């Protein structure tokens, strides 16, 4: 029996898989036929009324976290992608380092933490945890350096004013 191809990300899954192991898209409609046609394909036809629906082995997970629209899914199944929240957090962290301090650092921490929480809860296995953690700590370091800079300016560390 042929492997089932996911209509959303193109990843291959074992036969009789109910959900794509990469992006979580339900594959129940793929089980009955040999092709990977989906209702969105041009050649797909509504099954006849007297045709039995393929049984769904188990209900879909209620806390599924599908990749947001527009996210590039890697062609290699199992590869990780950098989440949108993480990308913005990296940009905000760089801004916090060079000029903006807490104004961009705090939102950057929130965004990176969001992705880290989703990864830790298992709702976003396709996201790269390393990048999310890196963005999180980048923003924290930027905030620490900002506070340190103010302290140095005030001479609290005994190094005088700039």
């Amino acid at each position: 029996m042929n492997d089932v191809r996911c209509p959303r990300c193109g990843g291959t899954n074992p036969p009789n898989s109910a959900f794509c192991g990469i992006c979580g898209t339900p594959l129940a409609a793929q089980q009955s036929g040999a092709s990977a046609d989906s209702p969105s394909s041009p050649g797909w036809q509504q099954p006849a009324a007297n045709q039995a629906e393929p049984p769904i082995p188990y209900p879909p997970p209620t806390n599924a976290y599908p990749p947001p629209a527009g996210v590039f899914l890697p062609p290699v199944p199992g590869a990780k992608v950098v989440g949108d929240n993480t990308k913005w957090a990296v940009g905000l962290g760089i801004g916090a380092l060079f000029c903006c301090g807490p104004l961009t650092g705090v939102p950057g921490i929130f965004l990176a933490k969001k992705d880290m929480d989703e990864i830790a809860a298992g709702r976003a296995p396709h996201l790269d945890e390393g990048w999310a953690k890196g963005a999180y700590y980048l923003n924290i370091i930027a905030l620490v350096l900002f506070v340190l800079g103010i302290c140095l300016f005030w001479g609290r560390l005994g190094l005088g004013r700039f």
Partner: protein
Amino acid sequence: MYDRTDKLVAIGLLVSACTILAVAGWLKPAACGYGTHTQLGLPPCSFLRWTHLPCPSCGLTTCFAWAIRLHLWKAFLANPFGILAFLGTVSLIPVSIFLLTRHISFRTITESVHFSKAIYAATALYLLSWIFKLAAFQFVGH
């Protein structure tokens, strides 16, 4: 689940917002459009000193100082994004009171997908505001 942390965060937001607005009212806005924060003993903008160009946050304190006095046009000229930040700070007061009285966790806001999109939009507006300041700095000189 509403717990002590949520209560402390809501109180912290309320106190922070009130403090920021009170300090903005106490400060005298700088005539040149930036540098008002130096009245608090904070250092002048390093980005401006090194590059001779305003950073995205230049004029933010001045904007708040003008906005609390209801001089919204001068506040906009000081930092366009500051108007949005000012309105956000003002709205924090009723929002934090609402969270406290209704025992709603701040996480219902921060874990919402709309929160991320709001941060994206605010960052884009922040950059647009910086472009405006750079253009004004080039043509006007401050």
